[in-house]
């Protein structure tokens, strides 16, 4: 029995993402064809799909970085189109490209974020040092970020994006290009932050194994549509006994009409 691909949140917290029929076209290219999605506070939510599926476009729309063609979306209780600044105050975003500035030190990058997010002056240094400590970057704080490994730079960006305790943290392919240790460190840190702050975490990936271990629910996205939304076990059960998440992925992305 297949349910409509509508995200039904499992937990009972308030909704922090409510997307309704979000559509985005680039000329003739339909990047998103009516995506509806709900995520609750405290959830870890994965967006899984092949290259070009629309993951980044969805994230950019939800983080106010791009307008949508039609549909509506609320994030952290505010409309992304009409209350963009209120949304921005309450979210963190780790974009697909590295966004930490390589020509600044780790500490300077953190200070930049602390001031942009208006963390009170007397708390900045303490909060930055705590965050760098937690991310295992304390010893590297004075080094230019261009000397960091990929994993270190990602951890710094996560620290930058969470300093202001966002309600929702968006991460676009946060572990792409990292070695297994780097990936593990990223997820350990995100999990710890998530536990402490109760934020919702929404990330995209095309590694199924990664999603399975980390997320509460996932959405499979292909050609701008959500093919399925649910807990990993639920989706596996839908395809058949003994199915792996990879099977789920293959089956569902093939089902989506072009």
């Amino acid at each position, binding site marked *: 029995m297949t349910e409509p691909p509508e995200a039904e949140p499992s937990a009972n917290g308030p909704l922090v993402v409510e997307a309704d029929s979000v559509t985005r076209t680039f000329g003739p290219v339909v990047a998103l064809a009516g995506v509806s999605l709900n995520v609750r506070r405290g959830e870890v939510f994965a967006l899984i799909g092949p290259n070009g599926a629309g993951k980044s476009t969805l994230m*950019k729309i939800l*983080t*106010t*970085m*791009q*307008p949508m063609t039609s549909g509506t979306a609320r994030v952290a209780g505010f409309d992304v189109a009409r209350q963009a*600044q209120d949304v*921005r*105050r309450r*979210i963190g*975003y780790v*974009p*697909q*490209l*590295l*966004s*930490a*500035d*390589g*020509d*600044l*030190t780790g500490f*300077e990058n953190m*200070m*930049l*974020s602390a*001031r*942009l*997010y*208006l963390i009170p*002056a007397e708390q900045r240094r303490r909060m930055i040092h705590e965050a760098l400590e937690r991310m295992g970057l304390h010893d590297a704080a004075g080094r*230019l970020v261009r000397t960091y490994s990929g994993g270190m730079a990602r951890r710094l960006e996560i620290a*930058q994006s969470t300093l202001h305790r966002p309600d929702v943290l968006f991460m676009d392919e946060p572990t792409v290009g990292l070695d297994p240790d780097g990936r593990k460190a990223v997820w350990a840190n995100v999990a710890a932050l998530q536990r402490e702050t109760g934020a919702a975490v929404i990330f995209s990936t095309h590694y199924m194994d990664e999603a399975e271990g980390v997320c509460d629910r996932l959405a499979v996205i292909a050609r701008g549509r959500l093919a399925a939304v649910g807990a990993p076990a639920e989706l596996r059960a839908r395809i058949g006994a003994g199915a792996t998440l990879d099977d789920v992925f293959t089956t569902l992305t093939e089902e989506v009409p072009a």
Partner: protein
Amino acid sequence: MTGRRNAVGDYLTQLLAVADAEVAKLIHDPWDLVSRAVQPILWLLLFGQVMAHVRGIAAGDGSYIDFLAPGVLAQSVLFVAIFYGLSAIWERDLGVLHRYLVSPAPRSALVLGKALASGARGASQGLVIYACSALMGVKLSLAPANMVGVIALILLASALFSTFSLVIACIVKTRERFMGVGQFLTMPIFFASNAIYPLAMMPDWLKAIARANPLSYEVDALRSLMLASGHSQFGVGTDFAVLVGCVGVLVIVATRMYPRLTE
């Protein structure tokens, strides 16, 4: 009352965060500042020396080198500021721009923060040009009020041309195209102005362009404030009004366009 003061304080915090980050980069890598100081020195030394012997340049009361020094200052501020659009495209390509745009900082604070950083670079050029001019015998005015005026002009002109450059960047969007357009714009802005020769020497069509060129107003005010015996042709009040007006319009336009650089 308090709410209002906090809003202003918050805005300044965000604006200065952007400017400070740029200044920190300059401190990490001062080579850029050093290499950019070479060009104005060469202009003063070589161009200034040769042109001083060309008869018929009506350079006012002083020598040609006196006439040239403010023009060279304006030129180096222009060349530094015009680079900001390219750096914005660069930051977009790297992903750094997202970090700014996803923050709650008002877009105008981001634009003005970059403009201020450009002003800091311009001011460092000013220092070099003052030192070099003094060594070459230019009769500079060191009256505090004049110095403050010159700093204000450097900040205004930096804001004007860096923001203009940002607007161009938002239109052309790629590095390659910006390089082409940048070359094509910088030279006319410089040569179609009163920076290296007086308006009186120009044919009428060029004079008309130069009078519509904000750089001419910057140079005009600099001539009056930088030099001990300087005077302005348009009036310093007019010069400032033109510059402030241009900055105002460009900041409004850039504020609207800047976020679209990531689309």
